[in-house]
């Protein structure tokens, strides 16, 4: 009995560590290149583009109001961070945990509720003192307090509740990227799934690229295709959607064709930031030029026009999304 409880607790601890890694990555997305998560040592290492490293220790408590171990966790985490800090490239050391009372100090417990990322100097002075004492007692001489941060990531309950704070942080991140409404949940599942295969080893290496492409694919996955369908018989609309979806996707993804559309667009439209109107004008003026690449037998001309325009729009939108997301996360 005790064994199974431990197994599920350790699974949860791993989930916490993995999700903490995601949150740390999102917060440093522009600078990050790779992330290493090691279950055994509760290490999270963020390798940045400029060859520097952000070190983190993640500690999970199973019961939210059980504070018996929180101080032990803090000491362990600081020791772990101290040990790894010998490397000269370390620019930040982060202790991340899910307890609302990381210093076991009932007077400052309110200060740590909800998601928090705090520099050492932002902490209440009594807590600062507590940490300084730990450092001197445990002789953690490598630890630089100017670089120390304490992060709280709420991670309690089961099912959706467990991830609610992670999801919230993910939504904040996605807010900066166009058209990401509604993809948060699925994105989180995809990320979790991508690395759960390795979870048995409790050791994963994540490349930024692997986190970013799912966003792009999800954003492009549901192109708005109603622009040209307004005013058309609903029966015909759904017929067009169903019958030609695969064809439209293939044309959008076929490199030769997509490249032709994009290059023609770039030759004609010089604006750096594409406006909806640029797309509209380009499509209106050029769609007939691409018809020779379309082979759809027995299609009504007016339907062909809709499909051609949608394909061109999807190609342009996709390219724009790729560029804009990559730029935002510095990929």
């Amino acid at each position, binding site marked *: 009995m005790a064994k199974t409880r431990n197994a599920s607790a350790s699974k949860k601890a791993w989930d916490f560590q993995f999700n903490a890694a995601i949150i740390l990555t999102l917060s440093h997305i522009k600078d990050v290149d790779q992330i290493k998560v090691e279950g055994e040592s509760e290490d999270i290492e963020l390798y940045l583009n400029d060859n520097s490293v952000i070190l983190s220790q993640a500690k999970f408590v199973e019961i939210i109001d059980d504070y018996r171990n929180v101080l032990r966790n803090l000491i362990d985490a600081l020791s772990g961070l101290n040990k790894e800090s010998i490397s000269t490239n370390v620019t930040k050391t982060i202790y991340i945990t899910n307890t609302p009372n990381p210093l076991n100090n009932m007077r400052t417990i309110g200060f740590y509720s909800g998601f928090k990322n705090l520099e050492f100097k932002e902490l209440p002075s009594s807590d600062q003192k507590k940490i300084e004492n730990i450092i001197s007692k445990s002789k953690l001489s490598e630890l630089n307090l100017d670089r120390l941060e304490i992060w709280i990531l709420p991670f309690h309950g089961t099912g959706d509740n467990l991830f609610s704070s992670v999801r919230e942080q993910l939504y904040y991140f996605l807010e900066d990227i166009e058209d990401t409404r509604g993809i948060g949940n699925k994105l989180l599942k995809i990320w979790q799934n991508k690395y759960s295969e390795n979870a048995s080893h409790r050791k994963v290496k994540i490349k930024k690229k692997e986190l970013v492409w799912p966003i792009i694919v999800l954003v492009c996955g549901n192109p708005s295709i109603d622009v040209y369908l307004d005013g058309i018989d609903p029966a015909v609309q759904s017929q067009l959607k169903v019958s030609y979806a695969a064809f439209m996707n*293939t044309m959008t993804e076929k*490199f030769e064709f997509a490249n032709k559309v994009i290059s023609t667009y770039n030759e004609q439209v010089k604006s750096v930031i594409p406006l909806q109107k640029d797309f509209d004008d380009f499509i209106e003026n050029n769609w007939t030029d691409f018809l020779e690449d379309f082979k759809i037998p027995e299609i009504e001309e007016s339907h062909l026009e809709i499909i051609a325009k949608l394909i061109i729009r999807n190609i342009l939108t996709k390219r724009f999304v790729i560029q804009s997301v990559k730029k935002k996360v510095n990929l």
Partner: protein
Amino acid sequence: MKLLELTISKPFDKKKFKFTDITLIFSKKNSVGKTTLIRMLLYALGYPIPSSKGITFGSYSYELKILTDSNRELVLHREGTELTVYEFSQRVNRFTLPIEELALHKMIFEIENDLVINNLLATFYIDQEKGWTLLNRGKIIGNIRFNIEDLVLGLSDRSDYGLKEKIRELEKEIKRYSMIYNTAIYKEQILKEHGPISKELEPTVETAAHMTLLLELQALTNELSRVNKVINGNIRFIDFIRNLKLYVIDFQGNEIPVNENTIKGFSDDEDYLLERQSQLKWEIQGIKKQLEPYEEKKDSKDKLFDIQSTGDIFDSAIAKLDIKQSSIDKVLKGLQSELKRTREHLREVLKTNNDITSEMHKTILKYTNELEISEHILPPENDLLFTRDLVPYSGAILHKIVFAYNLAYIDIIKKKFGKRTPIIIDSPKSREISDEEVEKMMSVLYRDFSDHQIIIASIHSYSIGYDNQLIIENQLLGF
């Protein structure tokens, strides 16, 4: 209305074409741009003309000087979807096409009737490709349509628009019921093959959920195989390029090999597809997991048929539909006969006591007589205009009938509104028709319509007295 001068330009380049009362656009060879010039002329007039091969109409700007029937000299400046009208160098109006096409054409043709304006182009323009087979309804060019009933309705000043609406509605309903009818036939076929579904064999909620999962699985599997195909296609493409061993030279003189790493955008597209592929695999895995319990139960109780494929699931769903071939047939027949009645009613309204139609009959008969085709059996007088039966005519006869109809259209618009539209004919000669016959047609045109502007594109110069010859040598624009 007359077209006086067309200027086609791009930054740093422009070319001017002058049009007189009788203009022949001439070239010795075919495919040098006569048709393109005519289509650009119509594009400049604000029509949604599709671009010719190799020339994108929207990438030029156009200035077209015209003289309206009330002697206003207007300049139409079209740039993409914006068309601005100037008079005495002052801007008088601005139209966004195609939304305001109707308003624009009312202004330049000086005709107020919507139905006439909407059907005007086919009356004065005969396109090289579709024009000579277009008699009284169909597409003129691109998506621009012509319909004789609409034109006559517009000319007759009748308020029978309601009938027209009703016809449209009925046509839509019939389309819908035809599809249901086909489904009903299919259903009956399924039942014939599999026998009737007894009550206890009807799919339960559980099997419905099972079916939904199977359908989802099928759709995802199809999508995955589609994505795989695209990935392979792109790989084949890049292999081909790489094997060509091409190099480009940059401005510093460095040689850069052309391959997947150096072609702009390729690696992005590849990354995109690989991620899409991995997401699909993940989703398929998820569905398969959900399907496991059903698979275990599968043998216990058999359903209507063995559920194996999407096709079977579809059949089973169709078999459940509460539709009967015979009752749908009744509805469909009812709708069809109502449509027929409404059409006849409209035609009757248009035919009877209608000066417009009888005037048009007279004109058509006059010219078919003169062009010596009236001995061929034409439809009886009251069906002449509205016939749908083109089968008996072919080749030279159809060519001349089309010509006679067009002359009748132009003539009636002149009589009714006092407006003279230009007459634009792209290649009056076809393979089936002799030079003599074309000469005859042209002389009729010149004799009876010399008060209109006539623009003809051809590789033959006819003996009508054109006063301007636009000779196109090798290229229409050269920029």
